[in-house]
């Protein structure tokens, strides 16, 4: 039993789509709990991919190919997941993510989006050139607990703070955790605009989300606290 799980995790790490799908099927045929397979094998595989990515051994192409293998396995597993698990899904961190208004660069944001979704978050990707009002609207609509804002350009970084201002104006600041990242940003900047978290790397963003949502119910850190990963 354990061997199938290990091999599935390995297949994801090895970017082998066909093997991943086939091993997922074998796991189902062997009567394994699909939820258990997702948690122990799929997430474990992507976890290892994330580590290699962070160590710069894996790069964007490997990350994408591994994600393809993951999704091939999930396509097989998900139809077998018991409906009660829908309940559990609601407890997963729910993230809306986008590149800020004025910025049309999204490759970095896409990588973060991918790492978050494959790392066990429910993600709604708003794309690029996203106005602050749209971040707020989408966060409400998606019942998100985290708003993740990205920018590549120095010229648009000041707009990142407008999302937090918009939340404050509408009296919604306490309802969401705001995390930021992107090449021109820094912890100092994140602190200045009053964000809840900053991560320098995509893998750091996943750890950040996990740290911020470590309790079943996300809690706002004290004033001036900023988690940096």
């Amino acid at each position, binding site marked *: 039993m354990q061997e199938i799980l290990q091999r599935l995790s390995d297949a994801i790490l090895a970017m082998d789509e066909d093997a991943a799908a086939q091993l997922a099927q074998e796991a189902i045929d062997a009567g394994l709990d699909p939820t258990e397979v997702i948690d122990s094998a799929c997430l474990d595989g992507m976890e290892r991919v994330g580590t290699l990515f962070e160590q710069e051994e894996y790069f*964007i*192409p490997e990350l994408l190919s591994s994600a393809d293998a993951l999704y091939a396995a999930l396509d097989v597993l998900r139809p077998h997941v018991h409906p009660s698990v829908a309940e559990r899904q609601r407890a997963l961190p729910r993230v809306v993510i986008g590149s800020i208004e004025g910025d049309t660069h999204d490759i970095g944001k896409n990588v973060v989006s991918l790492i978050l979704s494959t790392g066990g978050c429910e993600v709604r990707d708003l794309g690029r050139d996203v106005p602050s009002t749209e971040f707020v609207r989408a966060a409400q609509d998606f019942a998100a607990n985290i708003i993740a804002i990205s920018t590549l350009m120095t*010229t648009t970084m000041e707009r990142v703070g407008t999302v937090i201002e918009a939340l404050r104006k509408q009296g919604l600041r306490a309802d969401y955790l705001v995390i930021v990242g992107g090449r021109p940003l820094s912890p100092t900047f994140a602190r200045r605009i009053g964000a809840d978290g900053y991560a320098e790397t995509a893998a750091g963003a996943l750890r950040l989300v996990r740290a911020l949502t470590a309790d079943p119910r996300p809690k706002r850190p004290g004033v001036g606290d900023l988690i940096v990963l």
Partner: protein
Amino acid sequence: MPEITFIPDGLNSTIPVGATLLEAARSAGIVIESPCDGVGTCGKCKVRVLAGAETLETSDDRHKLSEEERAEGFVLACSSTVFGDMTVEVESTEGHNKTLKILSEGASFAYELEPFITKRFEGGQTTIYAGDEPLGVEEGDTTDKLYGLAIDIGTTTVVTALIDMLTGEELDSVSALNPQSLHAQDVLTRIKFASTPEGLREMHESVTAQFRSMTDDLCARAGVDKRFIYETVYSGNTTMIHLATNVNPATLGKFPYIPQIFGGNHIPAAEYGLDIAPFGLIYLPPIITAFVGPDITSGVLAARLHERRGTTLFVDIGTNGEMIIARDGTLSATSTAAGPAFEGMNITSGMRAGTGAIEYFSIAEDGSIELRTIGATKPVGICGSGLFDIVGELARVGVIGKNGRIVPANRGTYPEMLKERVVELNGKPAFCVADEVFITQGDIRQVQLAKGAVRSGVEAMMTSVGVSEAEVGAVQIAGSFGYHLRADSLVNIALIPAALGDRIEFVGNTSKSGAQAFLLNTPCRAEMEEVTAQVNSVELSNQEGFDKLFVACLGF
């Protein structure tokens, strides 16, 4: 209010409590190099606190200082908030220009000597004409003195040439760092810096002060009186032209990236900070888009792209990779954000093209290494051309795999001599290029992102225009690296498709040679205004599947 004393200049600055050391230095008129403009990401603004450290609060972002540096009292000026009097030691930025190797030559073509400015001696005085319009009058006969300047305003370096407009001869040229880079390294940081009136003034005045001092140097060396300089041509990217002409470039920095000016006109030199003839003019060549500027217009002119038969791919490799496909007179243009890796930024051992920079690197069949440094000194770092060579050669011999990973020595099929150079640096794989000069896995990732941006731009342009590799007759590489690059390295890092490797030509600094042609041949101006108006601008980020293409272009 706290008083800050800066050593060695001994200048004082009194600033409000809570200001940063960088702000204190700027208000005292002291230049501390701060290419990221005080965001805390570059780590260049380090200064040493000699007295008063206890009144300082620092937020040391991203750990840009080593333990030793911290122990010696170094802090980042931008991230240090002042609460009391103190004394601070600042490294001098003088001498930065002395060792820089800057390319000042570019390909050109034969044109008639037909300057816009002419002189006529009549009735005891000389009238200066701009086209048919009289521009000014000088006493006596000065018809034997008619000079112009061609200025290539690069983001990193400025090149100014003094031209005799009677003979067409370039009398001399000088190069210097663009002083704007001390406050803001890249184009976007500069746009942000210039978004306030004070910031714009600083950007405008610092670069024009540089133009004036270069003009003085050139005139002194050539024995020319600067009041006989009547026209200057500004060539450079769109942002540089905005800043040099004191125009707020804010709209260039956000989607949909619209320029405020479009060139193809004259402005009075005296009003814009130049010290030439009092009635002298500045000509601004036409701007194509926010990210394809007059430097590329000059390049089109110098390379005669609009007249070439067949298909030519023209690529200017720099922080922004601009490219043009010319196909029987029809031009398409685009630009990609390559980032500063090619200039040695964000590279562990990266440096500008100064003394000690590795500029050439090759690996022989047995694995022995040949390298050359600028000034033939002990290698201390890697500049752009060296970076292309190193990554290219390592990819060619298999130290770097197709996917960009450094292949561990025990799994590598590359020569033994290279295996001992594959080491670990801070727990990650690296290749030891020379004593204390490394190329790390992370550096290779930076190169992949930069070259992937250019390559995917090339591929997307070719697809958009419907050009096949077989059809491309020539690949012209322009830009500050120009002649220092090797065609093999461009192919080895897969920046240029391998099939086009034998068609690569280096055309050098065509921004400058084109500016010279604008200065000396008036018909060029109308010609290029017409050509640029018809350029088909390709917006890559709007193209279906561009991100997939980019990812596919990351490998070697």
